[in-house]
């Protein structure tokens, strides 16, 4: 891997990890949602530092070029991210429904108390 490319990829992955940490620092993102991002940043850094591993992985999965492996990894990462969000959205939808129902029931009880 050309040195320029290595440095560029390293800088991008470090900036990415720092950006995620900054989001946590600013309380924009909870820690529980950052593990996948930070893990991905670390994996990119590792693949840049140990290019031979990327070549081995490319051969292992039956790809021809290392860029194919990277694209596959990128698509797989986006898939995992979407699954994580789907799970969270489903949980939030359930909780919202429960809150709305409890809200309606409490309002009903308040109305009854007012009448009494």
């Amino acid at each position, binding site marked *: 891997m050309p040195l320029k490319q290595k440095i560029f990829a390293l800088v991008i992955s470090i900036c990415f990890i720092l950006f995620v*940490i900054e989001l946590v620092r600013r309380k924009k993102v909870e820690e529980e949602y*950052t593990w996948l991002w930070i893990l991905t940043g670390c994996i990119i850094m590792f693949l840049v530092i140990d290019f031979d591993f990327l070549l081995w992985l490319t051969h292992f999965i039956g790809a021809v070029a290392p860029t194919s492996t990277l694209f596959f990894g990128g698509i797989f990462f986006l898939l995992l991210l979407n699954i994580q969000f789907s799970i969270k959205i489903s949980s939030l939808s*359930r909780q919202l429904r429960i809150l709305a129902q409890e809200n309606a029931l409490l309002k009903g009880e308040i109305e009854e108390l007012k009448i009494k």
Partner: protein
Amino acid sequence: MRVLVVIPCYNEEKNIISVIKDIKTYAPEADIVVVDDASTDKTVIVAKNEGAKVLKLPFNLGPGGALQTGFKYAISKNYDFIVRIDGDGQHDPRYIKNLLLPVIKGEVDMTIGSRFLGETRYKIPVFRKIGMSIFAWITSKILKQKITDTTSGFRAFNKKIACFFVNSYYPSDYPDADVLINLHLTGFRIKEIPVTMYGGNKTIHSGIMPLYYIFKMCLSILATLLRRI
């Protein structure tokens, strides 16, 4: 002087009776509130039958969310001091007065019951002990005082800290070393008191949760420190 004991609970129907009974024995002047974190067993019924006030959450918020609910209740009812104790019987209520005394006297804002200064009546797994030691070391370095037990949920604190927990960031899952560091950097005084602890049944100990805990705690401590720069 009004004291509230906050007990966050999740499926503790087997343990909560003895916890409430012991609190009534060793701290009869304190009120008790059980914050039920959407238990699927009879925790709520059992706690109510023992005479505790019960706040039933509509769904599981995790330990941090349940505790914060208890703190909000304490503030709304004007309690002066709060004791936090787990519902699984791990914490011995006979130490409640020891924990409260320095806080009531105004010597510190919060006391932590440390099993490492006192007695641990159960075997802590080696890897967990190593992890606890590392976070205790980090916390001690930042607080510039020896802290031995950052994961202890057995704590007593005053109303100022309760307001801080309610108005600022409070973790939804494991409020441990990061919270202590945040309190110290805000100017609150903390002290450890020796206590005896027994084996609990925390979910943090099972599966891949220990790995997640290490990741989350490291990131949270880093973010807490960066916020102060």
